[in-house]
């Protein structure tokens, strides 16, 4: 149970004067402000019916009480071990000492506690040492860690992603060798894709793997932007590296996947010789500084032993398995940060007293809390609509991951896969953008305090900015959405999503929210029509079609978030009628207000974009590079 005593005050500023702290920013307001537990419970149990998952054989040992216990542990770890060094991750960023990366001392206890709590293998199969926790719940648990300190949570994400990749495509021997220490938190993991000259375009990567007589390979080349590429959190680091086997065909079809450990293992599993993967340097980022970003050289000073995963030349297909997971995790991290910023802003707006309402002309009357001002509520409502919309979108993906694996019928499992395909680029981009808006609004609500380094918002603003960039920039996601996901298999994924949204429209038909369903139905029709037009253009003039991909992504996000809000609205509308007290009713009224905000302010904005897409706007395509 949390106590106030563990909450660190912000470090005092240097200089002659201690910073002035308004009464509204006492230490009480500097509590971690993690994702609100009622919001999480509302979405998990009321909107996504997590309880129903316990009926499925894979989850039959679970119950709501067990889910709550897992979330309670995650919340405790987040508040006590993650939030406590969020600021220090920024001010005391990783550095290189004697050739090794040194992290903030707060990171290791947090990482170890995460592993000890069993969160690294939480959703993995029991036979691989996992606990078969639904993805829906493990995503929620990780979102709590992200909302406290996403940079530290990244080390777990990287290990889990690498381990899941070995679990999915590695040989039995590789699984037996690498998974137990990774899931136990003893070995870390990375994914090493990007090279200095091959970033968004992995087809051009040049790292090479030379076959050896013993069946292993020797890796050569350089990788850059490798998160968690070196540290002393774990005894060993397992890099999953994309490279070309010597003589492999050019392009994406010649890329293979390898395991490259920092330390080779002896026959008994103990650490052996240092492998020839060495740290070339660190990159110093604007935010998210706690996760070290490294340059790694392979085989430069000593041979670098690599083990092929799966079959040759299939590396990129395998890596997409992990990238899809990582993209949802990017959305999850953004969501966590957005919620934290929103919670800080609400606490501030309730207690900061400034000014009087426009109708009050009495200068001697006491000032009101700034939350009384309509424009402050506008900013908070916009933030709420974004952060809860983002949370619903990533939890939808979590639920679909569970359905893909465990839905009773094959048709349902297949439909879940199709939906995940089309929703993954949205789950990556919408939270990154929407939560940036929310964090920006939180900063605006807090005024100078939001902008000051003594307070948490400006760091979140910098940290979250990364989410538009990594794991495939938002531009790449837009190309993936329009160029691949909505057109593949005759538009099967898009059709599945339309059908899914129509289920919600049908459920809303006889309710007080029917007018919103009507508005969404119209938007859905417009979205489908411009998707059809763009689909045809994809076949005839892909350059022109894809020049509009980013606008298409924006429209898609607005429509899909309207859908998740309608579904939350329907649930909230039911729950407010049976609320046990005023506070609970206020909670549901707040959700309904955020839904109305989305339908009044955000959804109508698709209008001009739909027009632009329908006429296949060519302005950007035709802009000659020489003109810039």
């Amino acid at each position, binding site marked *: 149970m949390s106590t106030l005593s563990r909450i660190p005050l912000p470090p005092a500023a240097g200089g002659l004067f201690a910073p002035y702290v308004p009464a509204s920013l006492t230490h009480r307001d500097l509590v971690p402000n993690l994702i609100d537990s009622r919001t999480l419970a509302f979405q998990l149990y009321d909107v996504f019916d997590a309880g129903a998952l316990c009926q499925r054989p894979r989850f039959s040992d679970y119950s709501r009480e067990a889910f709550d*216990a897992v979330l309670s542990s995650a919340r405790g*770890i987040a508040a006590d071990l993650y939030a406590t060094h969020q600021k220090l991750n920024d001010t005391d960023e990783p550095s290189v000492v004697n050739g090794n990366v040194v992290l903030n001392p707060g990171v290791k206890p947090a990482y170890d506690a995460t592993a000890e*709590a069993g969160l690294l293998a939480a959703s993995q199969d029991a036979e691989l040492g996992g606990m078969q926790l639904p993805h829906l719940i493990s995503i929620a648990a990780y979102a709590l860690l992200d909302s406290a300190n996403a940079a530290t949570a990244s080390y777990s994400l990287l290990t889990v992603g690498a381990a899941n990749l070995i679990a999915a495509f590695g040989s039995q021997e590789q699984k037996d060798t690498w998974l137990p220490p990774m899931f136990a938190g003893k070995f870390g993991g990375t994914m090493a894709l990007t090279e200095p000259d091959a970033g968004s375009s992995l087809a051009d990567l040049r790292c090479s793997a030379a076959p050896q007589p013993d069946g292993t390979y020797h890796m050569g080349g350089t990788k850059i932007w490798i998160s968690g590429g070196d540290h002393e959190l774990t005894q060993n680091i397992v890099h999953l590296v994309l490279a070309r086997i010597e003589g492999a065909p050019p392009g994406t079809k010649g890329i293979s996947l390898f395991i490259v450990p920092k330390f080779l293992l002896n026959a008994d599993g103990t650490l052996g010789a240092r492998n020839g993967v060495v740290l070339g340097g660190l990159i110093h980022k604007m935010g998210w500084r706690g996760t070290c970003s490294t340059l790694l050289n392979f085989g430069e000073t000593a041979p670098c032993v690599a083990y092929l995963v799966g079959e040759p030349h299939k590396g990129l297909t395998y890596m997409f398995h992990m990238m899809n997971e990582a993209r949802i995790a990017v959305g999850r991290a953004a969501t966590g940060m957005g919620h934290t910023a929103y919670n800080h802003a609400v606490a501030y707006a309730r207690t900061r007293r400034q000014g009087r309402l426009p109708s009050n002309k009495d200068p001697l009357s006491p000032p009101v809390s700034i939350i009384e001002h309509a424009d402050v509520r506008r900013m908070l409502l916009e933030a709420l609509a974004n952060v809860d919309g983002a949370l619903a979108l990533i939890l939808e993906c979590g639920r679909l991951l569970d359905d893909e694996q465990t839905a009773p019928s094959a048709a349902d499992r297949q439909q879940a896969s199709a939906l995940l395909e089309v929703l993954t680029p949205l789950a990556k981009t919408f939270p990154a953008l929407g939560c940036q808006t929310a964090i920006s609004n939180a900063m605006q609500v807090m005024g100078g305090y939001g902008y000051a380094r003594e307070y948490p918002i400006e760091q979140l603003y910098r940290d979250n900015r990364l989410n538009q960039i990594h794991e495939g920039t938002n531009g790449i996601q837009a190309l993936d959405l329009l160029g691949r996901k909505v057109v593949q298999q005759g538009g099967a994924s898009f059709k599945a999503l339309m059908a899914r949204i129509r289920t919600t429209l049908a459920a809303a038909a006889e309710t007080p929210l029917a007018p919103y369903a009507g508005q969404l139905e119209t938007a859905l029709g417009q979205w489908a029509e411009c998707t059809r037009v763009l689909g045809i253009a994809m076949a005839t003039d892909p350059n022109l079609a894809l020049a509009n991909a980013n606008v298409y992504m924006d429209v898609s996000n607005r429509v899909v978030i309207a859908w998740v809000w309608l579904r939350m609205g329907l649930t909230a509308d039911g729950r407010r009628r049976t609320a046990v007290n005023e506070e609970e009713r206020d909670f549901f009224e707040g959700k309904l207000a955020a839904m109305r905000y989305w339908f009044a302010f955000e959804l109508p904005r698709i209008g001009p974009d739909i027009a632009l897409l329908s006429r296949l706007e060519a302005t950007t395509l035709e802009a000659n590079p020489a003109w810039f």
Partner: protein
Amino acid sequence: MKLAVCIKRVPDMEGRFKIAASGTGIDEAGLKYDMSDFDGYAAEVAIQITEKLGAGEVTVISLGPDVVQETLRKALSMGAHRAVQLKHDAPVSDGLAVATALAAELKDGGYDLILCGRMAVDTQNRSTGIFLAELLGLPVISAISQLNVEGGVVKARRELEGAYELIECPLPAVVTIDEGIARARYPSLKGIMAAKKKPLEVKPAHLGAITYQLEKMELPAERAAGRIVGEGKDAVPELVRLLKEEAKVL
């Protein structure tokens, strides 16, 4: 070694408290509940003792309505071996009455060491553990910050202002646990799932006679809003008068 840990379920102290309509308790609606912090440390210490010995059993015990089972399950998920709920639905504020019920359950259990939190973080009476030791006729060391159990002897340290004392007594004994001794672990997924299969017995609570009643609970009066008495030097005489007559600071 048999250890018992007495646990109270308390509201999260960061919640927003309201007085209930009865005027003698808090309104529980909307509050989150968890194990009292000091009881969590006590459970952690007991579990660590059995882990170190590689043997022994930790029984956790709580008095209250069925919702306390959730708190007991948490202790089981941390690593306690069995739990007992002394079922009693109405709130009790009398530590002696509670200690009497606990003593009735614990007296014939053959426990070597009974651990309580130094106090419950909500009511802060600091009485139950001491009363319990007295009722059981056992030695008690209160508010300890370090503990060593070896060869049938408890050695404990108590923090004083600028000093500490080391105390020892023979087992069986009662200790009450202060902060700083151990941080309660976060239940692991494995622990949570294992806890579902551990025994949790429900028994009626044999409360002692109620020796006092909580008469009334009140929140501190809200501080009055500031007052602007006027502007410029015209306001000074009034301000001086108020400082003299109302605030009485001049």
